[in-house]
Each structure stands twice: as C-alpha cells, then as structure tokens.
C-alpha cells in the first residue's frame, strides 16, 4: 500500500511517502491506523497527538472506510487553503 503524507504530518513522519505491506486482516482505515501505531513510535505519536485526515484515492474518508480496493492513501492535517 502506498501511503503519502503532507504538510505537518509529512514533517513529523520524516518522509513524503511509504510503501507498506498491510496484513490481510487490515480492512478499514481504523485498522490501518491501529496497525501503523504499532508499526513504530513515530506513527504512534502522530496519530495519538495530532489532528489528521485520511483520503483514499483522493477522496476524504471516515475511519470505518474499507481500504481493500484503495491504491493510494494520503494522511494530512486539517487544510488551510484559500
């Protein structure tokens, strides 16, 4: 799974993207977040202490969204455009 990061989240994670093979039991966004929190301390810190949004293939999604057909996941802070 390709995961990309933007803005403050990108700086906290320390990279622009990561390719991670998710286990088969990871079905939803919530599952993925739980998995990443155990994956390393950096993800744990981000998901525990910062506001974030998740987009699957360029669509904002909720935590119960099924990611089984998703090609690209983006994780980013609340937007501040305009």
């Amino acid at each position, binding site marked *: 799974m390709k995961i*990309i990061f*933007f*803005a*403050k989240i990108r700086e906290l994670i320390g990279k622009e993207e990561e390719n991670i093979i998710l286990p088969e039991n990871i079905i939803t966004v919530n599952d993925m977040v739980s998995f990443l929190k155990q994956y390393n301390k950096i993800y744990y810190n981000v998901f525990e202490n910062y506001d974030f949004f998740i*987009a699957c293939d*360029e*669509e*904002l999604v909720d935590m119960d969204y099924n990611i089984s057909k998703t090609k690209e996941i*983006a994780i*980013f*802070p*609340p*937007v*501040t*455009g*305009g």
Partner: protein
Amino acid sequence: MIDIRIQSKGFNFEKEIKKFQKTKIDGAVVCFLGSVRDLESEEELKKLEIEYYPKMAKKVLKETAKKAFDKWNLSQCLIIHRFGKLNVNESIVLIITQTKHRKDAFRANEYIIDFLKINAPFWKKEHTNRKSYWVEQNKKDIDMSI
C-alpha cells in the same frame, strides 16, 4: 464553463475579469481575491509557503465549482489557487462567478471559498523573522461553512 488552475506563478485579476466581461454571457460577475496578509504580531512575515496535494486539490476544486455551477445556474466560474512561497500582499486565490443575477453570483462565490477553506488539500506555512510554523485551521472557517 468551469476553469480551474493551480499554479505557482501570479495572476492578473483585472485581466481575468475582463475575459469574463468579453464573453457577455450574463450580467453579474462577482470576484473574490484572497491575498497574503501580514501578521498581527511583532513578528514579521517573510514568506507564506503553500503546499498542496495536486491530484486531490484539482479534483476538489472541480467538484466544488461544479456544485456551485449547478446550484446557482452559473454561466462561468474560474478558480485560481497558488502554491509555493509567496510574499505579503501577493495574491493567493481568485474566484470569479458569473450568472444572470447578482445574488446568485455572490452566493455561489461565497459557497466556493467557504467550502474550499475546509475541504481543499492546501496547507499554509508561515516563515517569519523568528521561526516557521504551520498555520492551524481556523474554527471560524468551519462554523461559517455549516
């Protein structure tokens, strides 16, 4: 016609409005121009950096313009949003809406900027004479869109 542009270079909003007037489809044209403002503190803003998620930003702006287009029966709609490092007073965003009646043009324009502020994946980082930090989302923007 819907025209969406995301670009690093500046734009001339007078030229863009004139293009709308030239086509003379409908009489009411409303323009919103957002610019980089200086900080209301002792710090001096050196640059405002705008980062964005290219594929999603274009998609969100297109969908937002399309919704406004259909809801207020627009004849034309232009959205330009810049990215990169900008100076104080430089333009960031331009929204032009055109329709038959002024109220619809105003409402459509306001809808687009309000929606964009809390949904389009752009992020601002302020570089001041003392430090650099990411701008936090303004709660007022969220309240205004509800």
